[in-house]
């Protein structure tokens, strides 16, 4: 079975909610929609206080090249546009809508049938995706249309669909593959058309045997789509690792996947693409895994963007007594949040509640030079060395050590027997080196 070769770790899966079907939770009383929903420039609001909006209506428009539209996830009246604490942990501009009913734009096709035939042309598909405000739903939230525009001189050879979900605890992609396989396949075909390739691979780790089996069956009648079972190893869902695992190609340092002819999209994104292109439905809801060892009812919830996360936690049986840390995302790459008074965003793949005894960090001791961090780094870096450079305030030296290749997967800190804060120090170095690179560019 395939996997990437260099490095990798095996954290416990803890997929507590993998057999829980996706459940749509009810509408919130108000939806608080942050303008920070994607990487790149935040979009400009196109509604004002007092405006009536319908579900799916554009409320903020992304004008920059790397920017993404935002649509109303509920119907009602815009009551405020103001700075509010949101998922990033900062106070950012949010559009608050008081919910009245659930009135969708007429243009959205709400019929449950699956539309197989793709009528739009390549450029129209990309325009549609851009209009629908679709971003990478794996967590990185990069505007999808940008990834689909192949730069001049480059050629896409294959599409890779990321169904790896290597983060422990998270199960939203797993459930999407099981429950919405047919739509997923159409979404994949749309993406193939958009980048002009006749080959697509769906990479799935073999801890999701049911998804592999089901999608393989569906892919059989769709020429060009192959399901690739992968050996479980973190961080296989990293773009470069997944490309290596499936095609054995290595994306050169500092380059994008298109350099080796690949475009990678997450399964959730492919579903959003299906909905946008076939059903005219913009991205205004997503599946969030709500989980944790003490959580009463770990589950996968379909929630509108802007829903308070307290509603999701309530649905999962309330916040456990021993909770000391709440994480937006998985335990390896997710961000711990300082308050549960935040709202669902497009990049929220999971909410993980960690009990007190797992929330505290182990006190670090001396590096024993065991070299485990260098063995497991999937980018082949020397985490101990970069960390040392930070500690001695020689971060600038880290550029030569390729610190910018680090994707912050956390395998080094996870593995370190001395519990050194390796990734923390590497982030400091990345920040510094990033500044140096930007100054140099000027």
């Amino acid at each position, binding site marked *: 079975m395939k996997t990437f070769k260099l490095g990798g770790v095996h954290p416990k899966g803890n997929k507590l909610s993998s057999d829980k079907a996706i459940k749509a939770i009810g509408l919130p009383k108000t939806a608080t929609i942050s303008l920070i929903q994607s990487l790149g420039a935040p979009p400009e609001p196109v509604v004002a206080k007092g405006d009536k909006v319908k579900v799916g209506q554009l409320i903020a428009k992304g004008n920059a090249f790397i920017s993404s539209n935002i649509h109303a996830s509920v119907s009602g009246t815009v009551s405020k546009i103001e700075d509010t604490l949101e998922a990033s942990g900062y106070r950012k501009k949010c559009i608050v809508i008081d919910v009245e009913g659930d009135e969708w734009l007429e243009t959205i096709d709400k019929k449950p049938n699956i539309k197989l035939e793709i009528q739009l042309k390549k450029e129209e598909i990309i325009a549609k995706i851009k209009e629908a405000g679709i971003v990478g739903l794996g967590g990185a939230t990069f505007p999808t249309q940008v990834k689909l525009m192949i730069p001049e001189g480059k050629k896409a050879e294959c599409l890779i669909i990321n169904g790896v979900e290597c983060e422990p605890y998270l199960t939203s992609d797993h459930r999407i593959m099981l429950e919405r396989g047919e739509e997923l396949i159409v979404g994949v075909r749309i993406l193939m058309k958009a980048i002009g390739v006749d080959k697509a691979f769906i990479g799935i780790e073999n801890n999701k045997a049911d998804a592999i089996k089901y999608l393989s069956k569906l892919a059989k009648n769709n020429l060009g789509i192959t399901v690739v079972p992968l050996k479980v190893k973190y961080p296989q869902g990293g773009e470069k690792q997944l490309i290596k695992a499936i095609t054995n190609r290595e994306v050169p*340092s500092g380059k994008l996947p298109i350099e080796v002819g690949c475009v990678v999209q997450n399964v959730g994104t492919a579903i959003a693409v299906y909905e946008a292109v076939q059903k005219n439905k913009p991205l205004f809801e997503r599946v969030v895994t709500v989980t944790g060892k003490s959580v009463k009812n770990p589950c996968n919830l379909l929630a509108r963007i802007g829903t308070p996360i307290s509603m999701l936690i309530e649905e999962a049986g309330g916040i456990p007594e021993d909770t000391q840390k709440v994480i937006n995302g998985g335990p*390896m790459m997710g961000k711990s949040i300082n308050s549960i008074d935040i709202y669902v965003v497009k990049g929220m793949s999971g909410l993980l509640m960690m009990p007190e005894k797992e929330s505290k960090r182990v006190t670090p*001791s001396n*590096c024993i*030079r065991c070299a485990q961090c260098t063995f497991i780094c999937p980018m082949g*870096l020397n985490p101990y060395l970069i960390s040392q450079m930070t500690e001695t305030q020689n971060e600038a030296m880290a550029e030569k050590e390729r610190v910018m290749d680090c994707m912050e997967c956390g395998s080094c800190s*996870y593995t370190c027997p001395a519990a050194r804060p390796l990734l923390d120090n590497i982030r400091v170095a990345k920040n510094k080196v990033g500044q140096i690179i930007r100054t140099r560019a000027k």
Partner: protein
Amino acid sequence: MANLLTISGSPHIQSDNTTKKIMWGVVTALVPTMLVSFWYFGLSAIILTLTSVAACVLFEYLVTKYLLKQASTITDGSAVITGILLALNVPSNLPVWMLIIGALVAIGVAKMTYGGLGKNPFNPALVGRVFMLISFPVNMTSWPLPMVNRTVLADAITGPTSLGIIKEGIAKGDTVDKLMSHVPNYLDMLIGNMGGSLGEVSAIAIIIGGLFMLFRKIITWHIPFTFILTVFLFTGILYYADPTKYIDPVFHLLAGGLMLGAIFMATDMVTSPMSKSGMLVFGFGCGILTVLIRVWGAYPEGVSFAILIMNALVPLINKGFKSKKFGEVIKNG
């Protein structure tokens, strides 16, 4: 739910591997070798091992508490390893006070002056051993025979090691054939029925410990394998060139401290390189130096010196031999 949530950077989980687990794993791996030494050298081996461990742990405790004024680190198990290795590197009739001085040098000088576990450039047990070898050359090179001395503490029946017999004999002009009748046969050498340091005698016990550490992923094969292979090939070439002047490679593998050195001392993670290619270079260097010293040097045994010299080169090796980075390929196939 707590009133204030904890905030920290990712990752939020930690593998269950710890420094303590690694160090106590090494101690476990040393158990077979210790038991063999107790079997062959009896009471004196037990006394030396206990003294050495106690002295190393005590010195580390005293230094951290009164000189460095830091939290004690003795529970991490690394001082215990140094203590055991130090004892395994001395003859069974070594006076206890000499061993205590060795422990003071190993822990006090070679380890704690640099900042304790992880900071020392040289293997502490080897520094302690070489210090004793230079300071007490007579006591450190008279080797009680196994079995016969099990209950004797002083005035043991001693003899030179196999490597010593060969080296002196060749220097006097004897041929290898003639000298071979004076050294133990290979089976005895394999199981440890020969004179030597406490822990140098049984290759099998050491290899069992090595396999355990490989299985627990405490060490990788790179250093011990290249170290032993280099010694085997180098002495093999010499033997092939002139079997009357050079002894065969199997003898070199089983005699002296090669197995103990290659498996337990050269693999010390603190003092060995951080990349796999670097480890191969390190093992190769250890092997070459060991043979050079054994065959042409002033001492019959060269493992300790070879490892210490290579320890000194580790920073350089780390600079020159880094792990392969992802995305370095220029062409994709």
